[in-house]
């Protein structure tokens, strides 16, 4: 029984990490209906900057996270200005292709020698890992830190969306760009703000990811990005709590199917479950079935 419990804790750790990335994914999607493929790569840049922050630049760890978040927010806004804004009124798929291009660019550019270099770097953690026992199962302080950070970020995000002016503007823009503009909302600024926040979240996720799984390299973001995107869709893309829920489920499915079914067929099991869930709930777990417009 303790084994099952410990595996569930493992699943939570992975799920919380996915959630960090999925939150940014789903925010951007909610506002401009764009699958931002480059999100996983912003996550990677965030991981690198954060690790450089507390190792090379000798910043205290929380400050390193903050610096990384700010720099990635700038990166996110720059990407939006350069690669997505020109396509605002183009078909949705054009922006997606642009996002794929940005993603490839970040990966290949960062693996050049004078940028981050192609090698795998072992990350020195800013603090020692200790584990303690909960009901007989091992829990590490990293698991606790990741969980706390995610829950705090989620709460902040929800507060911002529903209790601040910018949040209200975001919700308005996500419903109807043109109507929002008519109400005097500066849509461009709102979108930029969304990218800034989403990228900052990705950066925070990246740093925590690097601490939890202490190795970074320029292609780090592909798989977590893909899984997090899947999680966001599973929960109902565009819905913040949905991304969180989807990520937790993805984490559990990944861990439990590797642990109790077969590690070799883990991804097959995971994605089969995903497809089945979608067949039952075609717009994700928390997604409401939109009335079909005629």
């Amino acid at each position, binding site marked *: 029984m303790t084994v099952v419990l410990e595996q569930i804790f493992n699943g939570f750790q992975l799920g919380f990490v996915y959630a960090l990335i999925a939150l940014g994914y789903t925010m951007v999607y909610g506002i401009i209906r764009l*699958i931002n493929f480059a999100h996983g790569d912003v996550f990677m840049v965030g991981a690198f900057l954060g690790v450089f922050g507390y190792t090379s630049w000798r910043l205290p760890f929380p400050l390193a996270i903050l610096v990384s978040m700010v720099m990635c927010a700038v990166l996110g806004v720059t990407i939006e200005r350069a*690669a997505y804004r*020109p*396509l605002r009124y*183009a*078909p949705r*798929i*054009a922006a*997606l*292709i*642009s996002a*794929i*291009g*940005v*993603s*490839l*660019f970040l*990966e*290949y*550019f960062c*693996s*050049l*020698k004078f940028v981050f270099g192609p090698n795998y770097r072992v990350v020195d953690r800013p603090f020692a890992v200790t584990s303690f026992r909960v009901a007989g199962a091992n829990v590490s302080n990293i698991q606790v830190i990741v969980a706390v950070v995610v829950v705090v970020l989620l709460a902040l995000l929800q507060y911002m969306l529903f209790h601040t002016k910018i949040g209200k503007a975001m919700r308005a823009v996500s419903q109807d760009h043109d109507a929002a503009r008519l109400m005097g909302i500066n849509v461009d600024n709102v979108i930029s703000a969304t990218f800034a926040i989403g990228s900052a979240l990705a950066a925070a996720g990246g740093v925590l990811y690097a601490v939890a799984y202490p190795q970074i390299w320029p292609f780090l973001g592909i798989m977590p990005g*893909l899984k997090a*995107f*899947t999680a966001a*869709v*599973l929960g109902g*893309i565009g819905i913040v709590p949905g991304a969180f829920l989807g990520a937790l489920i993805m984490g559990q499915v990944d861990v439990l199917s590797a642990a109790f079914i077969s590690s*070799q*067929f*883990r*991804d*097959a099991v995971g*994605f*089969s479950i*995903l*497809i089945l869930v*979608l*067949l039952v709930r*075609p*717009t*994700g777990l928390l997604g409401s079935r939109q009335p*079909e*417009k*005629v």
Partner: protein
Amino acid sequence: MVFPAAAAAFYVVVRALTGAGLINDYWRLILDQSLIIAVASLGLSLIYGFCGQFSLGHAAFYGLGAYTAGLIGKLYGHGNLAWFAASLVAGALVAGFVALLVGLPILRLRSDYLGIATLGFGIIVKVLMDNSNKLIPATGGATGMTGTPRVADFTWIFITTVLVILLVRNFVYSRYGRAWVAIREDEVAADAMGANTTLYKTLAFVLGCGLAGLAGGLYAHRYPFVHPSSFDFLKSIDFLIVVVLGGLGSFTGTVATAIGWVFLLEGLRGVLGQAFVDWRGVVYALILVVTIILRPRGLLGGREWSALVPRVLAVPVGKGERRGGTGS
């Protein structure tokens, strides 16, 4: 008549240049690869470009075709051309049949949800390919499959491509094609007009995946090695890039872009040279972003090369506009 003449002329020119030693093995290989990619991309063009069904798992069907045809070629064919033709058909049929089984349930999903479901399916197929040697040792599982006779030469690949282009054209300009475009533009309206949307969507999906399977069979008989990593998620993205850059709802755009895309990737080797070989990925990514920003509706933006438009439809509709969808 322009198209068959142009195709025949192209074939003769390529053969003549090859015979004169002006096109070496390398560029012939790249030309063959570009045609194979064109056939597979035409499949996705039907599914996404015309029918509007977002698929992120196209490489899985390409891979299914490659493995099916490759296995038949390896175990029974041994270079026999009849077996080769049969294996191509088998590859297309298997891919199409799997598409039918998968498509019937998941085509109910819309837009990005369909995308993620097909992506998931692609990953499942990749996992099965990695472990396929437990069931069929000849596939080699994650170590890849060798031993397929390399009988697909330029003639075979070119003829297949031309036939596929004609097939796609005929479908696109039939009532099926019109139904697909209607579904892409507005599924609810198409349904209300009495189109059996499930039937048409499934047809596009099965046909498109079948073409991917056919292309896979050609690949397995042209390249000496079939490996699961050649059919992963990133390969599906490549097909998507080709179809979107070509312009949704333009099959000539798809063909032109597929060929141009392969030549671009290979051409970058020569253009960048030894010193900047690291930059290949960076330059490719930049070209991708710049191209889509300059031409957000794709290079052909939903138009077609007039030689391939049936004469009846070639009469201008409205103010110089032609049918074939807007590519939104």
